[in-house]
């Protein structure tokens, strides 16, 4: 049962990563590329993390995995904001 959950979750996560990468390569400008990247990466990484949870030691392994995801969420959100602001600022000029 947990194996099935892991397989489904990790495969879905990989699918999101794939979609994000395709979006990054195919979308026309920086803001849409950011949109593709952040949505897909956050969800993709989250799903892969959920898939790996049953295979790590309780409680510290689980805590570490969740922490990695939360840290990535925070930094990728902040960095996309910075990139987005930069792009908007340049457009106004």
């Amino acid at each position, binding site marked *: 049962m947990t194996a099935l959950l892991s397989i489904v979750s990790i495969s879905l996560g990989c699918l999101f990563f794939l979609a994000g990468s395709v979006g990054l390569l195919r979308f026309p400008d920086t803001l849409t590329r950011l949109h593709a990247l952040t949505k897909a990466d956050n969800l993709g990484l989250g799903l892969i993390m959920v898939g790996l949870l049953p295979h790590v030691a309780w409680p510290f392994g689980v805590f570490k995995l969740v*922490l990695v995801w939360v*840290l990535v969420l*925070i930094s990728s959100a*902040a960095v996309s*904001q*910075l990139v987005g*602001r*930069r792009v908007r600022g340049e457009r106004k000029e």
Partner: protein
Amino acid sequence: MNAELIFGVLLAGLILALASYVILGRNRFATTVGFVAYGLVLSLGWMVLAAPDVALTEAALGSGVTGALLLAACHKLRNDHARPSGPFLKLIAMILCGVLTAALIAVVLNLPEPPPSLAETAMEPLKSTGLGNPVTATLMAYRALDTMLEKVVLLLSLVAVWSLAPDRCWGGRPAFGYAAERGGPLLFLARVLIPSGVVVGIYLFWVGADAPGGAFAGGAVISAMAILGFWAGVSQPPAVSSLSLRGILVIGIVVFLVVGYCGYLWNSSFLSYPEAFAKPIIVVIEVAMTASIAATLAMLVAGPPGTSLRR
């Protein structure tokens, strides 16, 4: 063909492709970003080779800190359009790299099967250090002098960076601050990430005794947090004449030397640890080294002093 081999070949191909992009690319900023990606993929390669310590160091230093240094250099050179090196220089570099690669390939292909190993013999005496991680034990026992000299080299590089300061700025703070806008997302990131990042850094150093990690990886993470703090404007880089800064910069080497000379008292040789206290002494050295490494790396990225003390 098994899955592991296919993955290995793909990974090696990706590393080679990224390396070629970094060398052949024309855009300075894009190749720097490529270099960071190259470092991360390379650390994945080290993980595949079951060398997590090397992978951590590569990711933290080879990719993270070096990437930050290169980005800072990129920013300073943004108005500089120096002409690229001539064909003669490129030819020499190509020949030298080719010879080195050929020699490495020859060595790897001619390894006897099974490869000779001294691992068993080397591991036996390391048990007395009380460390669970053989990499840390080797660095602190067999290679203690090298580990100390690495810190000296790191400090020398900082001296070289500081010596680039103009005379009127000497003693001042590094003029580090290319965040165009203070506040906003960067401030949020600094406030959330710095406390947890410092804890992660200390954890990495502490766990290095028994698991992959150690002073370099932990120090690099802590230095990254310091750089984020400078960048977001929540703290300022200290003035290079500050005594407490200089104290932190040298404390790793000082503790190492003191312990080294004390070795004459205990076992009449330089850098030998008394059997009963090997682990506590090593932990003390590592704490001092982590502090020194973190401070040195952060000040390296912050660059030479650019503002004078008295303005």
